[in-house]
């Protein structure tokens, strides 16, 4: 094992920072602006990849930049563990950059220069964290990472975003303070903070109280970013950021840097033996186990997809911490392997969530019934990644989980193996419904979601769905059915208050309030604390408009009619294959305030245009249309005469907010979304599968085996 003096580690850190300059300079030219991002991303990956051969054979690259403070050298060091993280971060940055381009353009977001520049800065800091050679340098880049990601969290500049940003800074700086205190303790008691393979020797011999205290401070400080309970709550709130940010940073770079800090702590500051000797490893693993279980249970209750993914991230990150806390080579390998495994899988999931948001403006799982039809590739990737998260074979999650299971038994704590297995079940519990309903259900036939919505013990009365994925208690059905009857004569003025959700489109801040006859909108579930209104991503006008004319028409229609449902002319051929359940149509028609046929007539021209989407039709032929729509749904290729074929093929999407239960139109892979977003999804999920099928060839496992062998002396 030799040391190679080279500028490459420094280059890897500096390149993204140079990218910031390029991005800022080209801020007035949006099309050119993405260039520096892509170029620096690719070159950074290139530089780091070029380090691989030597690192794999046990060498270490060093760039020495002098002394920072007395006793602390400013050195960047690329060893196996650091290269693992750096390679992961930079490679995923490339694909995230492409994804960002698609995402930001798709939503026509503001402040893109600041976004891309902060992104580059964050990656630069993350690589700096990876290549730090001692705790102080790690701390430097750790804090810089916090500062660089703050503008990304607060990107939306709404109150929720600002509050999330404040919380984020408070938590992460607080973690930084704890890390600094720990570093001071280590430096004071041992005189060095350099990462020494096998641990700083003197830490084993100093006063155990100080050693344990320093470990607790360091692990706690890093644990803020690694989202251990109880300092995890910044992560779900940070989901207010744009999805590429949530994906790369809060599933890959920031949180992994926290976990990376813990792994450096375990491997190179204390060393696995000292950790075991001091008895601090098992409490760490225990906290991780608690986090795994609690976060998974909380995830079951989340309706917002990104929040569910956030809690899933919290849970999965603790797999890594769990592995690091146990003194067994397999557990260490499993924990470290989960870093890239989880990164690929979670990135896939977040990319899918973002694609769904951009394409259909849907953020809630309860609205996603049948969306597999609209976004087949996306949801397939989601399905594969979910399989991996649960730890089923052939996807990356299985390999790391396998090692963790063996390791926890090997270390003498089979309880952790049980925790891991039950976590797998919980993962299935919160991912499987999403996948299942996406492909095998439609809005009409969906089950109540999220899974746990009512009291945990269950209800004594039977639960039905109200058609938008929310449970409703028995006894309300009756009124709905009567409405559908009265509906059938097309009496638009029937003023029947319904308990059905008249405006099922869950758009809370819209004309709902104006439709007084409608039932007050049911929030996303009686016990759902995550009402959509808390998310800025849903309340921007841009979220609800798309670039097509359909939207302007739709909004025009909204203002003229002042209610969500357009009364369709019986003769209008609008059946665009959207859905609706009779129940909804009934209520909707009842809510329309102007019942005169003239209004219908006036509405007709608007609704006649082939590109428009009607929200629901409750025409006199509602029941007839309903059948049509049913048949339409069953048989997508069967178009109703006019306009339907075109609408089926248009790239306009269904605005979730306007329809109670969208029957998603069927799209192919080519028309589902832009390739900017689809290609990264494909690459990420392919990476997850590759890591699962041939982990040995995928470079990560080799790096990890090297790290663990060097640390524990055991060859796996």
């Amino acid at each position, binding site marked *: 094992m030799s040391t190679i003096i080279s500028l490459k580690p420094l280059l890897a850190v500096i390149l993204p920072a140079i990218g910031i300059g390029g991005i800022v300079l080209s801020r007035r030219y949006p099309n050119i602006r993405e260039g520096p991002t892509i170029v620096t991303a690719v070159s950074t990956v290139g530089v780091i990849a070029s380090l691989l051969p030597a690192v794999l054979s046990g060498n270490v690259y060093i760039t020495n930049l*002098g*002394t*920072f*403070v*007395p006793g602390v050298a*400013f050195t960047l060091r690329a060893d196996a563990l650091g290269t693992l993280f750096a390679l992961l971060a930079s490679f995923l940055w490339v694909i995230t950059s492409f994804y960002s381009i698609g995402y930001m353009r798709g939503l026509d977001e503001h402040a893109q220069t600041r976004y891309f520049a902060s992104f580059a800065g964050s990656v630069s800091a993350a690589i700096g964290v990876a290549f730090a050679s001692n705790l*102080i340098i790690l*701390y*430097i880049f750790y*804090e*810089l990472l916090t*500062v660089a990601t703050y*503008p990304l969290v*607060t990107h939306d*500049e709404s109150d929720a*975003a*600002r509050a999330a*940003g*404040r919380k984020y*800074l*408070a938590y992460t*700086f*607080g973690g*930084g*303070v704890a890390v*600094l*205190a720990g570093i*001071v*303790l280590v*430096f*004071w008691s041992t005189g060095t903070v350099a990462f020494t393979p096998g641990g700083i020797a003197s830490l084993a011999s100093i006063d155990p109280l100080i050693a344990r205290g320093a470990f607790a401070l360091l692990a706690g400080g890093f644990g803020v970013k690694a989202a251990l309970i109880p300092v995890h709550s910044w992560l779900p709130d940070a989901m207010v950021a744009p999805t590429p940010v949530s994906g790369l940073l809060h599933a890959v770079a920031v949180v992994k840097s926290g976990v990376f800090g813990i792994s450096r702590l375990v491997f190179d500051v204390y060393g696995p033996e000292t950790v075991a000797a001091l008895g601090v490893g098992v409490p760490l693993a225990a906290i991780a186990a608690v986090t795994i279980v609690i976060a998974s249970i909380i995830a079951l209750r989340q309706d917002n997809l990104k929040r569910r993914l956030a809690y899933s991230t919290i849970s999965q990150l603790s797999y890594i911490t769990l592995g690091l806390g146990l003194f067994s080579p397999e557990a260490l390998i499993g924990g470290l392997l989960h870093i890239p495994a989880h990164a690929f899988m979670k990135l896939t999931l977040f990319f899918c969530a973002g694609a769904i948001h951009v394409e259909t403006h849907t953020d809630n799982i309860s609205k996603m019934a049948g969306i597999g039809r609209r976004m087949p590739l996306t949801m397939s990737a989601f399905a594969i990644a979910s399989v991996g998260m649960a730890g089923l074979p052939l996807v990356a999650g299985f390999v790391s989980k396998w090692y963790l299971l063996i390791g926890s038994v090997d270390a003498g704590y089979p309880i952790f193996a049980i925790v891991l297995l039950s976590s797998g079940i919980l993962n299935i519990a919160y991912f499987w419904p999403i996948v299942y309903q996406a492909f095998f259900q439609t809005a009409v036939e969906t089950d109540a979601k999220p899974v746990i919505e009512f009291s945990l013990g269950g209800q004594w009365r039977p639960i039905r769905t109200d058609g938008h994925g929310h449970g409703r208690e028995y006894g309300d059905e009756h009124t709905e059915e009567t409405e559908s009857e009265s509906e059938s004569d097309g009496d638009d003025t029937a003023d029947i208050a319904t308990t059905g959700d008249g405006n099922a489109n869950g758009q809370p801040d819209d004309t709902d309030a104006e439709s007084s006859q409608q039932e007050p909108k049911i929030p996303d579930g009686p016990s759902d604390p995550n009402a959509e209104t808390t998310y800025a991503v849903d309340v921007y006008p841009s979220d609800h408009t798309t670039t097509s004319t359909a939207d302007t028409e739709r909004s025009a229609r909204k203002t003229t009619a002042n209610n969500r449902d357009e009364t369709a002319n019986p003769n209008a051929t609008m059946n665009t294959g959207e859905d609706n359940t009779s129940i909804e149509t009934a209520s909707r028609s009842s809510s329309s305030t102007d019942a005169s046929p003239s209004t219908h007539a006036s509405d007709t021209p608007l609704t006649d245009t082939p590109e428009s989407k009607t929200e629901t039709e409750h025409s006199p032929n509602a029941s007839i249309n309903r059948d049509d729509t049913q048949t339409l749904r069953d048989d997508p290729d069967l178009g109703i005469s006019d306009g339907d074929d075109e609408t089926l093929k248009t790239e306009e999407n269904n605005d979730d907010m306007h329809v109670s239960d969208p029957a998603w139109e069927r799209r192919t892979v080519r028309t589902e979304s832009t390739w900017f977003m689809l290609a990264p999804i494909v690459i990420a999920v392919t990476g997850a599968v590759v890591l699962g099928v041939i982990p040995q060839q995928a470079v990560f496992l080799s790096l990890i085996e090297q790290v663990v062998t060097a640390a524990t002396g055991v060859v796996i």
Partner: protein
Amino acid sequence: MTDALPLLVVVPLFAALFPVALGYLWNDAGWATAAITAVVHLGLAGVVAQQVLTGGQFSYAVGGFQPPIGIELVADSVTAVLVILISSITILIVGYTRRVGPHQNAFYSELLLLTAGVSGVVITGDLFNLYVFLEITGLATYALVAANRSPAAALASVKYLLVGTIGASLYLLGVGYLYVATGTLNMADLATQLPAVGYDTPLVVTGFILLMTGLAIKTALFPVHTWQPNAYAKSPHSVTAYIAALVSTAAAYAIFRIIYTVFTPSFASVVPLALDVLAWVAAVSIIVGSVLAVVQSDLKRMLAYSSVAQFGLIIAGIAVMNQIALTGSVVHLVGHAVMKAGLFVAVGGLASVAGGQTIDDMIGLGRRAPIVSLGFATLAFALVGVPPAIGFAGKWQIVLGAVSAGHWAVGVVAVVSTMLTLAYFLRVVERLYFRSPSSVDEQTSDMSMNMTTDGGDTLVASSITTTTRIIVTLSAISAIGLGLAASDLITILEPAVEVYF
């Protein structure tokens, strides 16, 4: 040439006559004189620094009278670093006032007097001489605070004068006590004479307390800081930048000198309570200063309370009697001066664009004043302690030293101060970048009051001058550069600091 040392004081002092005298002939005499003098001062500082770095500590006997009877000027590496700091800040501020600041010739005279005073504080080796220079500094500052002709500034200056004079007088009384005890005023001589008298005699201890109290008033530690927020808030922007960077710095340097050169660490071992109390007062300053800063709505008052907290940190590092912490304190002294000067100049720029200096005036300025806002944000995070800027290096040393010396409370407070500093800076950064003006109700910012702070010049909201941008960028870059070069700075300071341990 060792004559450079007294020239550091004499040149600005003498040059202070010219703006007023020549001002009758030529309107611009003030600025030109100040600029030339500042450059000459920098040259002299360079000479002194070079001599110290190559030859070690040296001294100069004023008037040829040998110490301990005569007044002695001493230059060691701490002095050298601080003198360079003074010259640089003077050049920066003189450049700043060219466009922005008060333009009266009397103003420049006072500025040069202040330069002379601060330089004198830093180079003197005699206790009473220190009093004289402290008073020169004070007088010049009182006049400068009121330089913009506004009555609010005059009132703030009167308050400052009253409190500051009491502080200086207490200092004088302390000098008197020590003189009564030993018969000498020379710092080095006192260090040998005081043990003979006995460190724990009431006379010596009282002398110490009086000296420290007087200097604490000048440094604006809690609870005797009350003059500072008003004085900073009401004075012109250039003046605030200058005095925030240098005046309290000089007083903190005086504390360092007296504790280490006059009283020496032996005093701390005989009377540990005295230093412990000082450390506790400093720690409380950190907390209270930060907490009070969070609730301020005026930006300059917020920065004034921030100074209270930061000087608490510096004095805490001095009071724990540990070499590492002491080095950290000096490093932080230098770094804080650079950062605060940059911050106040940035506030001046932002206030001129926004038309007011309250925190809500800053909303959305990230877009209108991108360079200055970025500089402000960088300096803010540097002061918070984000590495690798200089704010971190000093803080790291202080915490490490405090922990090594066993002062755990000071260490914890210093570490936690990061969060506290973040609390008040985050409010500003958030408003600069992440709020847009339309999303806030029109608030009444105290435009009428705040408009008068710009040195009596035109009161309309104007744009930012290039000079402001240059200065803010320079100080931000220096903050980061100094941070990266922190170990070199520490190496320079080592010889001066280790003699005490």
